[in-house]
C-alpha cells in the first residue's frame, strides 16, 4: 500500500510538471535576418537643358529623337547644326550621363560607347570622339560618380546621301575603376 502511494505521488508529480512548465503568458521567437550585399554601379541618361528631351530620361535605356534634319532647313529645339560646304552637315544635341556607385571602393569610372550596328553612310560621334560598331570608344577614363556629365551626340550626314530615316543605337558601358 505504501508502494502504491509512492507510485501515485510520483505519477501525479510527473503529470503536473509539464503543465506547470507550459504555463506562460509570454513567448519568444527569433528571426535571423541575412543578406549578402553586392557592389553595383548604375548609369542613366538625363536630358540636358540645352538638348532635346530624351525619351526614358532617368533610365539606362533612353532615346534621342533629333526630329527632321537637313543641311539648310529648320531644326527641332535642342538640335544644333554645322555644315561643311559641299560635303556634309552635322547635327548635334547634348545629353547627360550620370553614373552612381554603391557598396564599392571605387574613385572613378571608365565610360565607353559603341554603335550597335554599322553605318556605312553616316558618321557618329560622342563629344568629338568617333563611335563605330567595330570597337568601343573610351569617352572618359576618370568619370566622376554621382553627377551628370554632359556629352554631345554628333551625327554627320553626307550631302550626297538620300533623304530618309536614320536610326542606330549607341551602347554605353561604365566600368568602376
Amino acid at each position, binding site marked *: 500500500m505504501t508502494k*502504491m502511494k509512492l507510485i*501515485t505521488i510520483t*505519477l*501525479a508529480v510527473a*503529470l*503536473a510538471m509539464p*503543465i*506547470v512548465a*507550459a*504555463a*506562460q*503568458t*509570454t*513567448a*519568444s*521567437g*527569433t*528571426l*535571423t*535576418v*541575412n*543578406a*549578402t*550585399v*553586392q*557592389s*553595383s*554601379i*548604375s548609369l542613366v541618361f538625363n536630358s540636358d537643358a540645352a538638348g532635346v528631351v530624351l525619351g526614358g530620361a532617368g533610365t539606362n535605356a533612353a532615346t534621342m529623337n533629333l526630329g527632321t534634319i537637313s543641311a539648310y532647313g529648320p531644326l527641332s529645339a535642342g538640335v544644333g547644326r554645322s555644315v561643311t560646304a559641299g560635303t556634309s552637315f552635322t547635327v548635334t544635341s547634348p545629353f547627360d550621363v550620370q553614373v*552612381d*556607385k*554603391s*557598396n*564599392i*571602393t571605387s574613385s572613378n569610372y571608365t565610360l565607353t560607347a559603341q554603335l550597335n550596328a554599322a553605318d556605312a553612310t553616316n558618321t557618329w560621334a560622342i563629344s568629338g570622339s568617333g563611335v563605330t560598331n567595330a570597337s568601343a570608344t573610351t569617352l572618359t577614363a576618370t568619370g566622376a560618380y554621382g553627377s551628370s556629365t554632359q556629352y554631345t551626340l554628333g551625327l554627320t550626314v553626307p550631302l550626297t546621301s538620300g533623304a530618309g530615316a536614320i536610326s542606330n543605337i549607341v551602347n554605353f558601358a561604365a566600368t568602376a575603376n
Partner: protein
Amino acid sequence: MQATKHNSLTKPRQERHGWHGCPQIENEKKIRPWESVGIGGVSWLMAVAAMLLLAGSAHAQLNASGTLNATLINKSGISIVFNSDASGVALSGSGTAAAGLNFGTVSMYGTAPAGVTVTRAAGSFTVSSPFDVFVDIGGTASPSYRLQANLAAVPGVYSYQIDAVPLSTALTTVVAADPNYRTNVLHTMYLTIPASAPAGAVSNTVQFTVTAN
C-alpha cells in the same frame, strides 16, 4: 486370439490396476489415490490446491485497481511561430519560433531576388520582404497580444525595421494590441544598407517577444 485374451484376463490380480476386487489385495491396506503419490509428505491433491491458489493470486494482480489523484493546474500558454508569406522570401525554419529570413544577394542597382523589394534612396537602399507571425494561446481569454522585438546585436551602419517600427537592441513594441490570435499576421522586415557600406554579408537576429494582454 481367444487364448491371448484369456491369458490377459487371468493375469495375477496384483498386476492389475485398481485397489478392490481382489481378495488378496483387499486384505492388505487399501491405498487411496491421494495417498499413493506423496511429495515430501504433502499429497498431490494439496499441491494442486496450492497451485490453484497461486494461480488465483496471479489473476487477481492483473485486475488490480487503484486511484490516481493528479492535480492539474490549468494555466494559460502562448506561443509564436514564423511562417513564410506567399509574397515574401521563403523562411528557413518556417513554422517554428526560430526562423531565418535570407534576402539573398542584394544590391542598389541590381535585380532584386524573388520576394524581395528594393527601394533606392539617396545614399542608401532598402530591401524588404513580408513574413507572417502566428500567435496561439490557450487557457485564457486574452483579447489581444503585444508584439515586441529587438535586435540581438548592434546593427552598426545598417538599419532594421519591422513595418514602421525601427529596431534596436532595446525591446521595442511593434504592435501594442493585436487581436489576431491563431492566424497569420503579415509583417514586413526592412533592411536599409548605406551605399557607403562595404560589400559582403549582413546578419542579425531579431528577437520577438509576444505577451498576452
